[in-house]
């Protein structure tokens, strides 16, 4: 067993041990267990709709899977079509081969602006834009209330992607608001929401120069950015802004706007979320009301910039890499709620890209197998729940299996597992 393997195992063990004490990890884990338990059971029940989530998945999985496969087989031509169509619609479009290229474009588009208003975006993490902003002293102002709370608490650990600050206690939030803004609030969720509505909403309506969102999907054939939300923050920062930047991996592309709606509906249903808005953005705002002359930038965004990033994606497809199915992912996060390890270990089984197996695989892609092992790769039980539940048919379990094999080949799998394996091959019985 290599020294590196032992060290990585100790790191994971230390992280797991933190769940036994009164730590931030424990606080998150307590919430996450409750959330997963409720979520897991809710998939069987008709809640906001006449059918259950599982019925909805069953009914639409094949169409979604076939659509994603069609896209993947023709990814190059869809990217080309998408760029042409978006340009026709007056978007400013960039295609970045790597995250680094995307960073250059992003900084150029930001110009002298040092404040960036941002919606919730896992893509921004995946593309390295969060780290880039930190390095360049660009202040990120989160607009999703969950992320606003995460910033308020300066919470550095991975969090629940759909409701990033939902694990904070009401009393603690009120105390933080008093500490930071000197305002005393009644410890009620509605009071906290009212406070941010009365204060932050004005800023979002009047002060935003540059905003950043990802997209739930971009319809290549129509040139349309589709965004799903429930708070209205995306609606505000994509309209009441000078410049709206959309930064996404090219796997957010889908053929048509109907396909995009299928993706957003699936994300909505699998999250059982109370989502209020779907935005279909076809370009910057404009008017021809003055003498019939088209002028861009009426009440909505003056410029809409789309940065399409390839990085690992077409390489995975063209070189048939073992994680290529990841390009079919629609980021619904169902795999988190049903994952045996995620449910038990919360944000200890995670990476800087988020919770669970998906985030660990992303860490592998960007930072290598050692990073994945340190994230807790070997806490995965191999139950295949992630694959069985995935509405887009991604075999995440198989990707995790390949990662474990790679780690074992590099002699960095945990010592106890190596011992297990050796007993099987040497003694022909692991329990003797």
């Amino acid at each position, binding site marked *: 067993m290599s020294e590196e393997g032992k060290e990585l195992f100790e790191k994971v063990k230390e992280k*797991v041990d933190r*769940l036994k004490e009164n730590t931030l990890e424990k606080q998150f884990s307590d919430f996450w*267990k409750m959330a997963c*338990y409720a979520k*897991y*059971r809710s*998939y*069987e029940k008709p809640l906001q709709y006449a059918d259950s989530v*599982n019925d909805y998945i069953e009914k639409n999985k094949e169409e979604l899977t076939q659509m994603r496969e069609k896209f993947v087989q023709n990814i190059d031509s869809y990217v080309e079509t998408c760029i042409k169509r978006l340009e026709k619609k007056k978007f400013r479009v960039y295609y970045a081969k790597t995250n680094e290229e995307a960073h250059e474009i992003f900084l150029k588009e930001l110009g002298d602006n040092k404040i960036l208003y941002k919606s919730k975006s896992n893509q921004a993490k995946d593309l390295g834009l969060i780290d880039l902003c930190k390095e360049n002293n660009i202040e990120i102002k989160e607009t999703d209330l969950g992320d606003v709370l995460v910033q308020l608490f300066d919470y550095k650990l991975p969090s629940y992607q759909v409701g990033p600050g939902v694990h904070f206690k009401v009393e603690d939030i009120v105390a933080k608001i008093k500490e930071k803004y000197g305002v005393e609030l009644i410890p009620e969720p509605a009071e906290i929401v009212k406070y941010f509505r009365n204060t932050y909403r004005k800023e979002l309506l009047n002060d935003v120069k540059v905003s950043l969102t990802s997209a739930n999907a971009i319809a290549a054939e129509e040139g349309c950015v589709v965004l799903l939300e429930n708070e209205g923050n995306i609606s505000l920062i994509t309209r009441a802004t000078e410049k709206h930047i959309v930064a996404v991996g090219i796997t957010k592309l889908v053929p048509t706007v109907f396909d995009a709606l299928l993706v957003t509906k699936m994300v909505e249903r699998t999250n059982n979320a109370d989502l209020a808005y779907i935005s279909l953005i076809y370009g910057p705002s404009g008017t021809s009301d003055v003498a019939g002359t088209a002028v861009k930038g009426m009440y909505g965004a003056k410029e809409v910039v789309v940065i399409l990033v390839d990085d690992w994606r077409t390489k995975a497809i063209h070189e048939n890499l073992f994680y290529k199915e990841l390009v079919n992912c629609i980021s619904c996060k169902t795999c988190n709620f*049903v994952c*045996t*390890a995620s*449910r*038990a*270990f919360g944000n200890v089984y995670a990476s800087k890209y988020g919770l669970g197996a998906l985030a660990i695989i992303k860490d592998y892609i960007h930072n290598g197998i050692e990073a994945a092992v340190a994230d807790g790769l*070997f*806490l*995965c*039980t*191999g*139950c*295949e*729940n992630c694959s*069985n*539940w995935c509405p887009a048919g991604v075999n995440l379990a198989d990707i*995790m*299996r390949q990662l*474990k*094999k790679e780690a*074992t*080949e590099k002699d960095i*799998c*945990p010592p*106890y*597992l*190596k011992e*297990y*394996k050796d007993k*099987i*091959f040497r003694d*022909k*019985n*692991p*329990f*003797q």
Partner: protein
Amino acid sequence: MTKLIYLGCLSSSKYKETCENAMKIIKFLDDKFVTLENPPCCGALSYHLASDEELKSHVTFVNEWFKEHEVTEIVTICAGCYNYLSHYYKKFIPGFNIKVRHLLQLMAQPDNILKLNLKHQGKKITVNYHDACHLRNADIPIIEEPRKILNSIEGIQLKEMENREKLSICCGAGGGVYSIFKENSDYNALAIFKQGKGRALLTACPFCYTALKRIQNNKENKVKKPVIKFEDFIVKIMDGVDPIN
């Protein structure tokens, strides 16, 4: 021509009584099935750790052992062995043609259900059945069989859990993680007990049983529902004994 009862390392090392019960059922259904001395481990626990070369080498070794003993048919009582024998052996050994079945498949054959003719005398008992990952994820998934068997038993009523079949909760005992970290199991196995209003929880996987039993034994969990191995439950019914006490 050998019809082999392949008990699996975990059951034969730790659950001798269950092995006896399984053999009793199998021999009742087909007395040509036999056990052999010191069968090697199928290799199931290494499938996500070892390289294809290592796996192939082990699988070849075990297959030679099967050949040496002229094995033509296998019935196993282990979910892991079933999953592994019916997938990796075909993958690595061209022409591997030993018929591999789990005990549940053998029992669920219509003629065997008739032959077993299981009846529980006394007050009706409700039970839950936990779908083990190794059975539901196998190349030929075992999902319907336990239901057919339980529904055929007079006096026994199967109460389905909310998350079941292909989408059941994992007990947390897989992947070798359980030997060091019990957190997976502490949470997930307990969640399994909370689903379905049966008086007993049945499982056909020795790994799930190990994890579930540990949760049941911990008094802090306040689990009143006993977890019972499928084979033990069936034999008690065959013997006319209360199957859940």
